[in-house]
C-alpha cells in the first residue's frame, strides 16, 4: 500500500511511530544531523542530505553492556544483560545505509556463529528507507549497484514529493506498520504515479563510481607496495572514518569497573588507532600508519569480499566528508587498483 503525510507533519508521524516501538530517527544538532533515539517527536528532522554518523549504532551501539558484575567479599556476582529488546523503528535510512545492514548481517548473523547482540536487535526492527533527492560529491554508492531510490532492504520506503511524504509498504512487516498508523492518509492513484516517478528520478541520480573489477585480488597482489606509505602520509590515525562508517565493525571488549561494580562491554575499536593490534605481549604487528591504512582498505575491499562475497563499503562518502585531512577513500582505492 501507499500512504502519505504532509511534509509539515513530521512530528505527527514521529509521534505515531513512537507508539509502535522505540523510534530512531535523524535529529539536528550542532554538528549536523544524526540518528538518535527519539524521546520528543519534535526533534525529528527529515531535512538532510545524509546523517553525520551511520545508523549502525541502532544494532551495534558504541558501548554495549554484555555482562554486569559486582565484586563482593564472597566473590563476583554476574548478571548477563538480557537480550530482549522492544520493537524498534528506524525512520529516514538512506538506501546506502539500508544496504549496510545487509553487509553487516553477513558477518554478524550469516551462518556460523550468530552474534546475538546484533541479531536480536535486528529481529524486531522496522526500517523506513528514504530516497535521496540529490547527490553529494563524496558519495559513490552507485559503485555497489545501490540506487538513490532503492527500495530493496527497507520494510517501508519513503520519498519526498511536493509538500508530501509518500510511504510504500515493501515487506509484510512494513505493510502491517503502515496500515496501523492512523495519521497517515491513503494515497490516490495520482500519488501512486507520482511515487513511481520519484523512484524513476532516483534511479537516474548517479554518484561518481569507483572501478572495483578484480579489486579484491589486486589488493592482495599489491600488499607490499610502497604505495601505502605515500597514501597514508596525510592520515592522522584518528578514528573518525571508522566511527562514522556504516560498515566498520571492529570492536574491543573491556571490563569497566568502578567501586566494585561494572560491566563487561563491547566498544567500538578502530584499525586506525595505534594500539589496535597491540598484543598483550607488547608486540604490535601494525606500528606504522601505512600498515593500518592498508588494513582498512584491504578489509573493506578485499578480505570481506573474499569471505562474504560483498564489499564492506556502501559508498556513503561519510569517511571522506569527516576526514580531518580530506582523505578520499575512492582516490586511495583507485591508486591501489591502478598500480602496475
Amino acid at each position, binding site marked *: 500500500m501507499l500512504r502519505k503525510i504532509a511534509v509539515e507533519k513530521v512530528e505527527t508521524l514521529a509521534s505515531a511511530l513512537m507508539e509502535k516501538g522505540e523510534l530512531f530517527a535523524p535529529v539536528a544538532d550542532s*554538528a549536523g544531523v544524526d540518528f538518535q533515539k527519539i524521546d520528543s517527536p519534535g526533534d525529528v528532522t527529515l531535512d538532510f542530505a545524509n546523517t553525520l554518523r551511520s545508523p549502525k549504532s541502532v544494532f551495534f551501539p558504541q558501548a554495549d553492556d554484555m555482562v554486569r558484575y559486582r565484586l563482593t567479599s564472597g566473590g563476583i556476582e554476574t548478571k548477563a544483560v538480557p537480550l530482549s529488546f522492544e520493537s524498534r523503528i528506524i525512520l529516514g535510512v538512506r538506501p546506502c545505509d539500508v544496504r549496510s545492514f545487509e553487509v553487516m548481517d553477513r558477518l554478524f548473523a550469516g551462518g556460523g556463529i550468530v552474534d546475538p547482540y546484533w541479531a536480536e536487535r535486528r529481529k524486531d526492527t522496522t526500517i523506513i528507507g528514504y530516497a535521496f533527492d540529490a547527490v553529494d560529491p563524496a558519495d559513490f554508492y552507485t559503485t555497489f549497484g545501490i540506487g538513490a531510490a532503492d527500495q530493496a532492504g527497507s520494510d517501508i520506503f519513503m520519498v519526498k514529493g511536493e509538500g508530501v511524504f509518500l510511504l510504500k509498504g515493501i515487506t509484510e512487516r512494513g505493510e502491517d506498520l503502515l496500515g496501523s498508523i492512523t495519521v497517515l492518509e491513503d494515497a490516490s492513484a495520482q500519488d501512486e504515479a507520482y511515487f513511481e516517478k520519484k523512484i524513476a528520478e532516483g534511479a537516474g541520480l548517479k554518484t561518481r563510481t569507483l572501478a572495483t573489477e578484480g579489486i579484491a585480488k589486486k589488493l592482495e597482489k599489491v600488499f607490499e607496495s610502497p604505495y601505502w606509505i605515500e597514501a597514508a*602520509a596525510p592520515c*592522522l590515525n*584518528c578514528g573518525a572514518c*571508522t566511527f562514522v562508517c556504516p560498515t566498520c565493525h571492529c570492536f574491543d571488549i573491556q571490563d*569497566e569497573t568502578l567501586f566494585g561494580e561494572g560491566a563487561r562491554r563491547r566498544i567500538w575499536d578502530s584499525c586506525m588507532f595505534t594500539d589496535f593490534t597491540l598484543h598483550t605481549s607488547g608486540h604490535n604487528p601494525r606500528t606504522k600508519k601505512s600498515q593500518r591504512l592498508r588494513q582498512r582498505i584491504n578489509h573493506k575491499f578485499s578480505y570481506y569480499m573474499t569471505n562474504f562475497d560483498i564489499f564492506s563499503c556502501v559508498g556513503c562518502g561519510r569517511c571522506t566528508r569527516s576526514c580531518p585531512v580530506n582523505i578520499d577513500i575512492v582516490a586511495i582505492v583507485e591508486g591501489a587498483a591502478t598500480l602496475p
Partner: protein
Amino acid sequence: MKQIETRLREEAKRLLETGEVAVVLAYGRGYDDRHPMPYAAKTASDTERIVFNEYCTHNMARYLMDYPPGTRIAIAVKGCDSRAVVVLLQEEKINRENLVILGIPVTGMKDPKTDRVIDASTTAGTPNPVLYDILLGETVPESDASPYVVLEELEEMAGADRWTFWKKELARCIRCYACRQACPMCYCDPCFVDQAEPRWADKSPSIESNLMFHLTRFYHLAGRCVDCGECSRACPMEIPLYLFHKKVAKECEEMFEQAAGMSVDDKPVMVDFRVEDADEILL
C-alpha cells in the same frame, strides 16, 4: 593566495632539486578545491602538485614528528603553525638546523565546512609567521582583535551554567581522538588515555570518561597550545574545544606572562617557574 602558491612551488622545487631538503611539507589537491590535503613533496616533479588556497588550514607542524630525526625538512607554515614549530623546538623534539621554514603570511583562511573566515574567535589570530627562513608573501597587518574576547560569554556565566554547557558538549564526544591526532603537540607515545595501568579513563564514551580525557588534555597543553584551532576543525562532532584551550592559554599568559610558541629561547611555562610567581594565582 595564488602568488603564495606560485612562490611555494618555486621554493619547494629549488630546495628539493638542490638536495637541501629531503621532503617539503605543504598542501596538495584533494577530491575538490575546497578540500586540499596535507602533502609531502619528495621530488622536484612532486612540487607541481602543491597547492595553496584559503582552505589550506591544516597545521603541517603535526607531521614533523613523522620523520626520523635528522631528516632535512622544509615546512610551509602560516602564523599559528609557525608557533607550533617553535613549541616543538622549545621542547627539543626537532632540530632547527634540519628545518627550512617557509613562512606564509595570510588572512582570510576559511573553514571548508562553513565557509566562514577563520579569525581570532576560533584561533590565536596570528596572521604572520613568528619564525621563518623564507617568507612567501608580504607581511599582513596584525589585527588588534583579542583572541580571548570570544570567552567573555562563558566567563561571565555562573559556574553551574558553564558546567551545563561543557557537560552537553563533552557528552557528544565519540572518542575518535581526531583532536589529539590533529595536534602537533600531542606526540606522547603512549598517550595517557591509552594506558590501562593506571586507567585514567574508560574507553567507552561516557560523559565522565570524556571529561577525564578532555580536562587532562586541556591541562597537558597548558602553555603549549598555540590556538591553531585544528583540534576543533578536526572534531567530527564540532565540539568547541578551542574555547577551553583559549581559556587555559589566556590564564597562562596572564599568570606567567608568556605566550606559547613565540620565541625559541623561551622555556615552556609549565616546566619553568619564577620565585616571584604570586600565591594569588592559586585563588
